[in-house]
């Protein structure tokens, strides 16, 4: 619980402090876009688009903060019924930016029975993004670089999501405290990534753990409860 509280306070303070400048940034950008609408300059349309995109990104940062704060403040966040394959697809497209340059082969094995889950989309994508980025990093400098994302519908009504790499594996002393905050093996990193992943997954009623793969590499797995189609309102 202490871990939760420390992160919670940090998130809440950060949220308040960051929202103010984000508000100012958004206002200036949106105002500039309004001015550019009246401009007859040759470059105005391009500028307008760039300024609008920048504003959208500032609002997106606000969204991320809001989700994080809702979740630490109430211990519950805004959850919607989402399609797990879509979440994975969207997170992958972000995680794999630049992956082609480092030549990582990516494959998916998605169980059609693990389709609908009740989640905070942004949070679960954050978890997926984190695990996939870690996996790609873990494979730097090894000859075989294969990333697999797999889902399985388990008998207990949970969807098990695995992110599997062919990297060098985890040192035993690290794996014991992998999900503790401020533990890291990276040169640059605060060591809060996996800790936040655990907090998010557990708040969704799931578990997260790591396993060594006998043939080399590591699997990070987490579970989410599956939503049965009958549970969802008829109109979706």
């Amino acid at each position, binding site marked *: 619980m202490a871990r939760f509280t420390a992160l919670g306070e940090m998130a809440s303070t950060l*949220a*308040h402090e960051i*929202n*103010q*400048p*984000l*508000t*100012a*940034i*958004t*206002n*200036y950008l*949106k*105002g*500039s876009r*309004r*001015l550019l609408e009246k401009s007859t300059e040759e470059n105005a349309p391009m500028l307008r688009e760039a300024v609008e995109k920048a504003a959208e990104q*500032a*609002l997106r940062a*606000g969204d991320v903060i*809001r989700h994080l*704060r*809702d979740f630490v*403040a*109430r*211990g*519950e966040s*805004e*959850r*919607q*019924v989402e399609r797990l394959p879509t979440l994975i697809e969207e997170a992958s497209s972000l995680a794999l930016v630049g992956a082609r340059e480092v030549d990582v082969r990516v494959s998916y094995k998605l169980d059609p029975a693990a389709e609908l889950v*009740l989640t905070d989309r942004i949070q679960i994508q954050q978890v997926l993004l984190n695990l996939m980025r870690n996996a790609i990093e873990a494979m730097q400098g090894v000859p075989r670089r294969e990333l697999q994302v797999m889902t399985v519908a388990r008998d207990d009504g949970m969807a098990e999501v695995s992110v599997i790499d062919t990297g060098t594996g985890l040192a035993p002393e690290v794996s014991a405290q992998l999900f503790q905050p401020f533990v890291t093996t990276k040169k640059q990193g605060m060591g809060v990534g996996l800790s936040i992943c655990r907090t998010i997954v557990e708040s969704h*009623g799931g578990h997260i753990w790591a396993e060594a793969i006998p043939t080399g590499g590591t699997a990070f797995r987490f579970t989410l*409860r599956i*939503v049965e189609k009958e*549970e*969802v*309102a008829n*109109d*979706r």
Partner: protein
Amino acid sequence: MTGNHLVHVVDDDVDVRKSLGFLLATADFAVRLYESATAFLAMATSHLDGCIVTDVRMPGIDGIEFLRQLRTRGHTLPVIVMTGHADVALAVQAMKEGAADFIEKPFDDEVLIEAIRSALDSRNRTEATHPQSAEIRGRLAALSERERQVLDGLVSGLPNKTIAYDLGISPRTVEIHRANVMSKMAASSLSHLVRMALVVESKR
């Protein structure tokens, strides 16, 4: 004519305040900036035009106290409350103290401008109607009885566990109802949902 388009901005954060001044000027509003509710009240004459956009969390007189003092002094300007911390309980309190609308920082300019326009319009009508209220009412009507009960709980600022206990159902069932309510109401966030519910409720 300009008198109808006057916006008083009250925010203790100087950068946010100035950015609002800039944004609203580009949308052709006349803007006056105040660093605190006290500064506004000191300037306020008996006859005031336009509407107020105020932050809720400020040192000295906060947004809620500001709403009370305005009413005590007989000012009837519509007030839009901005919050950096979308606390549902606080939002409900603001609406009950007479706020015309509340929006969450950071916001899309259209959201703010729409809120200002409808607040200014409402001044000219005795029976104010939020432009979206018919649409919101339609969505509300699409909720099942259970979903409506869950919505009422959420609007009261209750956590899922308490709503579940009150209704005698499991927290997980509440979560599913809640997700269904969010999608049927086309709500982008919990505070957006509360805002819609309150807009309709306050005009009943």
